[in-house]
């Protein structure tokens, strides 16, 4: 054992790191957003940028407030939300059924993955003209386009969710003699749920994207049509107010899915 003097000569071991583990900083995120808006406002005010090219955050807020007060924006948002709800529900239900079948049954898997792999990369908005031909210019074509966009990520996430359920859990259930339907209900579905939710996260973003695109192509009402019209009229403050609303819609959906995750997948 080292004596007192020898011990004093020993150098402390330097701290060399903790494995690049990123921490959490909610304050940092909020501060970054506030800083971005502040810089934007400063650039608009101090450099005298034309509000046509870059309206200031204050101008956008005023436009947003005015549109809300007049009730116009909310009705546009309501129409888009209904289209999203219909298209997303249809696509998600069919996608779930097909995806679960792909995960559970050999033939459905072979056929499903071949078809999904071939069709998934197609930008769904490119099919809107075809949808309009099939279903007319009204609501069905927009809903079908959204449903198609939602179907693929939902089916893929459901199928990979089933794949991700540990086989030992299914073997365990089989060893206790659980019937097939019970295994699906009590083991496969809960096990696949986190992956399905991850698919929902993607599919809701796609639905938002597609509703705006579809409304820009062939609608008089809806947030997409509103943004397009504002752009055509050079009302860039209103255009960006619409964009802010879209961003808020996306955030609201992400929050809702996070709440679902906390409620039903807290076991992870």
């Amino acid at each position, binding site marked *: 054992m080292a004596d007192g003097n020898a011990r004093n000569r020993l150098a402390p071991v330097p701290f060399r790191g903790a494995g690049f583990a990123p921490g959490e900083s909610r304050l940092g995120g909020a501060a970054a957003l506030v800083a971005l808006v502040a810089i934007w406002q400063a650039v608009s005010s101090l450099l005298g940028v034309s509000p046509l090219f870059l309206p200031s955050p204050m101008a956008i807020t005023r436009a947003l407030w005015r549109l809300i007060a007049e009730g116009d924006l909310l009705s546009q948002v309501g129409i888009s939300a209904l289209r999203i709800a219909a298209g997303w529900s249809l696509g998600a239900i069919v996608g779930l059924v097909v995806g679960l079948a792909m995960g559970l049954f050999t033939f459905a898997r072979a056929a499903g993955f071949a078809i999904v792999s071939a069709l998934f990369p197609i930008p769904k908005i490119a099919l809107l003209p075809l949808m309009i031909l099939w279903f007319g210019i009204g609501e069905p074509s927009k809903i079908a386009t959204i449903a198609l966009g939602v179907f693929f990520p939902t089916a893929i996430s459901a199928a990979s969710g089933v794949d991700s359920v*540990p086989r030992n*859990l299914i*073997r365990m259930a*089989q*060893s*206790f003699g*659980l019937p097939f339907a019970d295994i699906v209900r009590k*083991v496969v579905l809960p096990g696949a749920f986190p992956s399905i939710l991850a698919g929902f996260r993607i599919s809701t973003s796609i639905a938002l994207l597609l509703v705006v695109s579809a409304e820009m192509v062939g609608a008089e009402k809806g947030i997409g049509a509103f943004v397009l019209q504002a752009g055509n009229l050079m009302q860039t403050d209103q255009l960006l107010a619409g964009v802010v609303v879209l961003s808020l819609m996306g955030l609201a959906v992400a929050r809702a899915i996070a709440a679902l995750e906390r409620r039903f997948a807290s*076991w992870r």
Partner: protein
Amino acid sequence: MARLVVDNVSHRFGDLDVLADVSFELGANEILAIVGPSGCGKSTLLSIAGGLLASTQGAVRIGDAPATSLNPLTFVFQDFALLPWRTVAGNIALALEHTRLGQREIEAAVADVLARTGLADFASALPKQLSGGMRQRVGLARALAVRPAILLMDEPLSALDSQTRDLLMEDLERLLEQGNMSVLYVTHNLDEAARLADRAIVFSRRPGRIRAISSAPVAREKRADPAHAEAIARWRAELWSMIRDEAQAADRETIDG
């Protein structure tokens, strides 16, 4: 009388022969250990015995189970196989929910087995909140809840540290004494085999064949007596002498690819 008869079972995965002509009987209330080098087909045999894998050749037959049994043949898995989204009580109830028992009977059966396995205070805990030893207790409780005639245990203690393993072995001895059960116990740990088993089947390396069937020199209930420690140690050494060369060869085979 035999509770389980394994009759000339062979198995292959593709071109790989895993088991060759395995035949033995598991007696009533007997604990039969299956030991052998890694990859010799021990767990494959257990899957075949439990009906989770169809053998390429041969058959496994089971005797009449007691009328009280809800599932004559159940597993305790090496990795516990607990549903992470269900509580301890929920995991145990899973094994009973499709049986003839009503809801109240299920609750009573779960409470009974929780008490017997020392888990009563953890009924509403999720698996992630439990230690490895407690998780395996849940696995054991789930298997016991259906009152099996035969328990198939696949390296049930191998994922645990040595202290937890010792504690769980004590529990296992006590629980197995209480029940009218036969046990097929797959392990690579000869200490477990020497402590728990009435007989041990020694497998060769792949394809697994029965090299020897060896009976314990001392009855299970007398093994805690230090006077028999030497005899048990000799039996363990005898089992190891039969496995050692095979294990070494299997190890080299694995490294050689």
